[in-house]
């Protein structure tokens, strides 16, 4: 995809917790319309990177350029959902929240939007369950509900953190079709994944993380046995008594505690 404006640009970016970087010194660009898999072992910093992009973490160093995108242009499906599934709310209402950007806190759901919600439910295969309580759904059905909500959010940038965790293969196939349709519509999609086979089959580009960038580019060239082995080694080096990272490029000075 030549000559496209980047949707996300990382400039020597570091995110972490309590001064320990979870992922550091990322530099690079995600082109507009990219379908990018973010891959790496547990602890590689995949979730941290997505949280950072969505703004839940602020950088420990470096900077992030989202090309003028606002909060409402980004749809984010976190891995650790804080959703209270015992809450008395119907599937329809839950999905309709995806319309937040249009209806905000006060506008109503009119017939047209009502139809949009129904359509989103149909696209994830839950057309008959709109009236059911969210608490009555299975794990896979609930993941479909979250995808229906993402559909309605109509976002330019979609961030998915382990979207296929604990769902069966039929559901995974359906959800991948949705992701591919977002890609076809020109949206930028980043998905943190750990199933290498899924990535190879469906994602044109891959960012291999191991607390830093191991490789980034065309999936076929990134997911080599050598790169994967390297990423595993790098992650094991997390150290509670780590020295101050000297790779900083003089932008900000920090002293050891």
């Amino acid at each position, binding site marked *: 995809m030549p000559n496209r404006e980047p949707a996300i640009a990382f400039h020597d970016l570091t995110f972490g917790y309590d001064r320990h970087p979870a992922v550091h010194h990322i530099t690079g660009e995600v082109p507009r319309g990219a379908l990018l898999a973010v891959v790496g072992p547990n602890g590689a910093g995949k979730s941290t990177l997505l949280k950072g992009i969505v703004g839940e973490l602020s950088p420990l160093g470096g900077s992030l350029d989202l090309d003028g995108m606002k909060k409402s242009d980004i749809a984010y499906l976190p891995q650790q959902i804080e959703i209270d599934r015992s809450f008395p*709310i119907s599937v329809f209402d839950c999905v309709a*929240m995806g319309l937040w950007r249009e209806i905000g806190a006060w506008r109503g759901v009119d017939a047209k939007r009502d139809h949009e919600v129904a359509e989103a439910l149909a696209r994830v295969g839950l057309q008959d369950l709109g009236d059911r309580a969210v608490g009555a759904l299975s794990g896979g059905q609930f993941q479909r509900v979250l995808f229906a909500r993402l559909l309605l959010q109509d976002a330019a940038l979609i961030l998915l953190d382990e979207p296929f965790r604990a769902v069966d293969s039929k559901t995974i196939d359906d959800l991948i079709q949705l992701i591919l349709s977002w890609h076809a519509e020109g949206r930028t999609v980043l998905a943190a994944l750990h199933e290498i086979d899924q990535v190879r089959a469906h994602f044109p580009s891959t960012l291999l993380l191991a607390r830093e960038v191991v490789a980034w580019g065309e999936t076929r060239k990134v997911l080599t046995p050598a790169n994967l082995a390297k990423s595993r080694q790098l992650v094991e080096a997390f150290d509670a008594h780590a020295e101050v990272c000297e790779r900083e490029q003089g932008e900000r000075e920090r002293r050891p505690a």
Partner: protein
Amino acid sequence: MIDAIIGPFIEFSFMRRALVGCLALSLGAPPIGVFLMLRRMSLMGDAMSHAILPGAAIGYLLAGLSLFAMSLGGFAAGLAVAIAAGLVARSTVLREDASLAAFYLVSLALGVLIVSVRGSNIDLLHVLFGTVLALDDAAILLLAGISTVSLVVLAVIYRPLVLECFDPQFLRSASALSSPTHLIFLVLVVLNLVAGFQALGTLMAVGIMLLPAIAARFWAEDVSGMILVAVGIAFIASVSGLLLSYHTGAPTGPAIILLCGIFYLLSMMFGPRGGLLWNLVPRKHLEA
């Protein structure tokens, strides 16, 4: 029979005032209780009701048994504790429940100290148990005003509040309304507790907020239904509590709250949404 129910209200103006006050309270407080329950903050309401004591006591010290001073003081103290607890939870290792417990216990001790140093035990009893049978015009206007404001504000923040309960992360990622909504909700909690303590006292105020709400969980499937049921239960408990107190001489505040409690027990047993008895009856499951 009819005479026993309507008679006291026709005959005595203090009973009519008490009725108006309780109905105003029943309109404003139970919807707040529904959200407290759904956010798993039921006990937080209880803690907050204790936290308003020192403010009311300071108001009493400065201005005597003045409704305005005590309400304002109670409101300020409750809000201060809620916000301080929230800030500590956000900026230190403490969770919100622990920091709230710390602040409200200090606040309660301070309140009891102030009341007992300067006032008599009678005054302390007034603050702790309320004076529903001695509501003057100003108090009734305050109760009605608070419940009006409370309902209007709740309608305005309804959607973000539901989201804040159900999926706070989504609200944070979709809009900047998360923190303001939480703050406004805390203000509503404190306002309604201040209203409640005029009538029922600090100890009982939280009862009319929470018990009908908790009972309503067993009857309604969605939030708006729960709010309606909770208000209805609070209405009935208020009226029957006043009558019970009139006919038997029992103290009014506890009578109203005990009736709320009876409604809770009945709902827990017979409520169609997860009530105890329904779970015991074997019913054939549906096709899908």
